[in-house]
């Protein structure tokens, strides 16, 4: 695996980076700026993480600030809670989506609730980085899209970048946040490349329109953004001009941007890898319907993973929302009224 260490990108200078390198740069810049920021997790030190996102951090900041922990996700997150109580800003790496589950009790019962149960006296500025999603040919337990569990939990911010620039900016924003952030990294986008200018950090919680369009609006995030953009390109040939919204943040949810983008076209499809039943798309479709009912020419449709355990790698392409399935959904948006 290639290294994620960025070609020494000074803040402000434009450089060509992969998403992995952008995340690595964000961690390094945050650690340089704030001595209370520390990175911890399985294999994050000497190895630099299995995806190399923490590459070089132990060498620059020492083993105490880039801590190789024992294999125990509840212990990792639980001790991060104690560290945050003592004034540190832990950035926790949980190695894979499905291996974050042992930390669930700490996440739900303590991380998400501590500010609330102490009436604001013990905020927990913890960032929990989780590589998630499929499309990398991973075997069982390496491809889950677990965002619905986190988004369903009050007290957590749930962010997921889809571009290299957001990999940097949103991770910086997450670390700067005084609230706990579940930071979901689409692992199949780790190697995507772009020219970016690592710079000032935007506030958490705004969606962006990645592509303007007039026919219908695709609402998506994370690993499905490039698929939706590709679908929009293909759709042009069929006469549809699709808008694409990158949600970026599931909590807080940017109703304002989404509502405006759907009203502008009157048609919407939500696209994500996570299973559909009780998934984020159900919430989004409901919110859009509540706010845009009189602007809608068709029901809000969803293109999601099937309601099955994540499939084996040789079958995953049938499960993942692809261009054709998205366009089929667009075709069903009641055009011939």
């Amino acid at each position, binding site marked *: 695996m290639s290294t994620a260490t960025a070609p020494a990108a000074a803040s402000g200078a434009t450089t060509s980076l992969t998403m992995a390198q952008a995340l690595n740069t964000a961690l390094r810049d945050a650690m340089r700026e704030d001595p209370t920021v*520390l990175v911890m997790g399985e294999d994050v030190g000497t190895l630099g993480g299995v995806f190399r996102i923490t590459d070089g951090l132990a060498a620059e900041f020492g083993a*105490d600030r880039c801590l190789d*922990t*024992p294999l*125990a996700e*509840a*212990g990792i*997150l*639980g*001790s*991060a*809670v*104690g*560290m*945050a*109580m*003592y*004034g*540190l800003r832990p950035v926790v790496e949980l190695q894979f989506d499905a291996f974050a589950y*042992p930390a669930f*009790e*700490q996440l739900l*019962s*303590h991380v998400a*609730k*501590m*500010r*609330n*149960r*102490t*009436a*604001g*006296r*013990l*905020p927990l500025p913890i960032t929990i980085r989780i590589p998630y999603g499929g499309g990398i040919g991973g075997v069982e337990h390496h491809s889950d899209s677990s965002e619905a569990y986190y988004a369903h939990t*009050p*007290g957590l*911010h749930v962010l997921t970048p889809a571009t290299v620039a957001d990999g940097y900016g949103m991770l910086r924003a997450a670390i700067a*946040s*005084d*609230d706990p952030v579940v930071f979901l990294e689409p692992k199949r986008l780790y190697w995507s490349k772009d020219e970016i200018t690592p710079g000032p950090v935007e506030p958490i*919680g705004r969606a962006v329109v990645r592509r303007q369009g007039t026919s219908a609006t695709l609402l998506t995030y994370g690993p499905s953004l490039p698929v939706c953009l590709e679908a929009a390109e293909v759709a042009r040939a069929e006469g549809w001009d699709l808008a694409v919204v990158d949600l970026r943040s599931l*909590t*807080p*949810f940017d*109703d*304002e941007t989404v509502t405006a983008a759907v009203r502008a076209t009157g048609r919407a499809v939500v696209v994500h890898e996570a299973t559909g039943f009780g998934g984020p798309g159900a919430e989004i479709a409901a919110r859009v319907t509540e706010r845009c009912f009189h602007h809608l020419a068709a029901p809000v449709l969803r293109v999601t993973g099937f309601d099955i355990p994540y499939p084996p790698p040789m079958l995953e392409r049938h499960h993942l929302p692809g261009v054709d399935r998205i366009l089929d959904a667009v075709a069903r948006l009641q055009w011939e009224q």
Partner: protein
Amino acid sequence: MTLLDQPAGPSASVWPPNAHGPRRDPAPLLPDPEPFRLLDTPAADKLDPELLRDLYRRLVLGRRYNQQATTLTKQGRLAVYPASTGQEACQVAAALVLREDDWLFPSYRDTLAVVSRGVRPVEALTLLRGNAHHGWDPKAHRTAPLSTPLATQAPHAVGLAHAARLRGDDVVALALVGDGGTSEGDFHEALNFAGVLGAPVVFLVQNNGYAISVPLSKQSAAPTLAHKAVGYGISGRLVDGNDAAAMHTVLTEAVEHARSGRGPVLVEAVTYRLEAHTNADDATRYRTPDEVDAWQERDPLAVLERHLRAHDLIDDAGVAAAAEAAEELAAEMRAEFHSEPELDPLSLFTHVYAEPTPQLREQADLLAAELAAEADAR
């Protein structure tokens, strides 16, 4: 013969090669075979009489605190109360051995330890009163909120102790866990982390024999719970939890051990829950009156008072003074719980995030409108 039965031949010492880390001698980590005791032993003569009198006053206070809190449940002033009657020596000692800048990580049963740390009863009992999840300022009292999910506070203590050391402070964290809690994964993970990090943390297990109805025999097959320490490379201590002097001595040593950088300590205090699990529990369904009577004989308060009287370390006036202070505490508790707590429904939205999300603002507006309509209807 299985593989395990094979006598260790000469090859056993060569394989595996010593590449997998150090092998440590477990002997120094092992707890005493019997719970450590001081009262009613010759060693007790060396104890500071003033310390013993102080412990006595605190136990009297603690017992009265437990009684008053239980009464408050009967009057509907507390939603529920898990009494620590019979465990006062453990809780008082846990608070007493800590410095002001040390941290305590209590569970739901440990409000007496919290009060002994200087928190007002009405704040220590907020969770159990039901008007809010938590009362006191954790940072001001260096005392974490009561933890209800079993053993989940143990890794917090490890993290805090480790963070303190990273920041150059010689602060110790003490986590309280029940015997049942030692079966939880978080207990295991916390001890393992503590051992690996060498964090300045003390785990105090109050082994009161039961996890609600389930006796320790169904909870663990370990020789003692203190033995669990050895598997994590940390020191285990076994102590009579109803001997206040022994508790104070062992915990003082454990805290010093941790503070001086010699690593974490697991202390198992053998004690007994004289009351039911909570006021809502019926303990007669799982234990006999004979068993409870036998433990009444080892009541930590009675044990200490017998010792003080036998050695002429306290007189009737001293006993009366302690009782009077306890009555004052009880009166304070009655007064504080007499009035209804103030409730602000809109506060439900204020501390979910540093800044309410747009969605929470909408929901707060909805509730505000409902409240206004309610007020109009009145």
